[in-house]
């Protein structure tokens, strides 16, 4: 129950922060800050996959409805939810993930975070910008936006984890 409320509060926090703050920050060169994938990355790793699909889809639609993107964020959020279990499996540590522990910066090594979060953010950003622009003759611009936005999003995701999250106690 506590877990449910925690994730519900996170849902609201990330949706509002993304739509009202980070979508309004617009620098040149096509750089965009995307922090909302972090919500999906921090969902429990042993969550039912169907449930995680539904949650991330609704989450994406919430952001869409505030920022007038009509399903763009929902599609990208769904893609991370789909890719998440596979990436987790590839980068599995020597002993399996503890059930109930949160796969955040506090509980995992930085190298694991760098590779898993980095890779999933890369997939998300590329898919998002590809759909947004949707022209093959501007593929270079898609790459430019993806490569330039990625470090910014990643650094902010790390900052949010260091500021707001605490180490979960293992029983």
């Amino acid at each position: 129950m506590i877990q449910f409320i925690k994730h519900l509060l996170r849902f609201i926090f990330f949706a509002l922060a993304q739509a009202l703050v980070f979508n309004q920050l617009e620098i040149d060169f096509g750089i965009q800050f995307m922090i909302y994938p972090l919500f999906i990355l921090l969902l429990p790793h042993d969550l039912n996959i169907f449930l995680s699909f539904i949650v991330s889809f609704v989450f994406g639609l919430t952001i869409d409805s505030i920022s007038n993107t009509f399903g763009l964020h929902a599609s990208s959020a769904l893609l991370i939810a789909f890719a998440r279990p596979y990436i987790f499996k590839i980068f599995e540590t020597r002993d399996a993930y503890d059930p109930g522990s949160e796969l955040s910066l506090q509980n995992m090594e930085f190298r694991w975070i760098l590779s898993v979060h980095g890779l999933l953010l890369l997939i998300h950003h590329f898919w998002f910008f590809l759909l947004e622009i949707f022209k093959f003759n501007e593929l270079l611009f898609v790459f430019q936006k993806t490569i330039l936005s990625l470090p910014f999003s990643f650094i902010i995701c790390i900052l949010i984890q260091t500021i707001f999250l605490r180490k979960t106690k293992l029983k």
Partner: protein
Amino acid sequence: MSKLFAFFKRFQVFLLFVALQFFALYIYFTFMSFPKTQILTSANDITGKVLVVKNDVTKLFNLSNTNLKLQKENIRLRDKNPISFIQIDKKSVKIDDTLFHQQYEYIPAIVINSTYDKRNNYFTLNVGSLQGIKRNLGVFSDEGVVGVVHYVSKHFSIVKSVLTADINIDVMIEKTDAFGLLKWDGTHARYGKIAGISNDIRIKKWRKVVTRGGSGIFPRGISVGKISSISSIEGQPLWDVSVLFSQDYRKIQNVYVVKNLLKTEQEKIEALIPEDKVE
């Protein structure tokens, strides 16, 4: 049959993913051309209220700037007020004017949400159908055109701004009277393009570009910007004209929605044009 169920069972995760993904992409691509439901846009009641609160906070940052702009516009309008004219000929009699009928009506509005960095940028206004807003009305600010109303709810409306891929407002270049369609290529929020100007027309840099008023959405002569560069397109008898917008869409606050009272009349008479027969 049991094989079919086994297939579904095996690929159920992937199938759900595909179904939801298909749904998301379907609404994404259909919404851009014609919106159907209100719930997924910022014109619905909950997100509209959230955006109003957000605007209440952020509008204060631009307050002094907005005031200055409104003051300038006031001065311009005050100049036209009869009070500021001296009557020279005392003998003339004022007659109620029947030569001029009102064609355009203006509704003031505030932009409560806007972006400029995306490929298609939509603005949310704080007026809706209760204030008489309808789809396909023009929107402009005191500095230039802003866009066309795309979707209306009771209290809010969404504007398809000049910064979208297929805005196609008809514009003309002052003095030359050459006209074309305004486009945006999605790279920089200050520069647009005019398509369809034949390269045997002489045009000069820094000429003003204004709306033509052909489709009855905008009145004639609302400022769009200035020509910033001209180059020829290879293989086509057309100029590649770039426009520097007079309105900076990155800091837009107060706008007007314009209602053409004679639009139905214009549409009715234009529908009488016989279509070209295809043989």
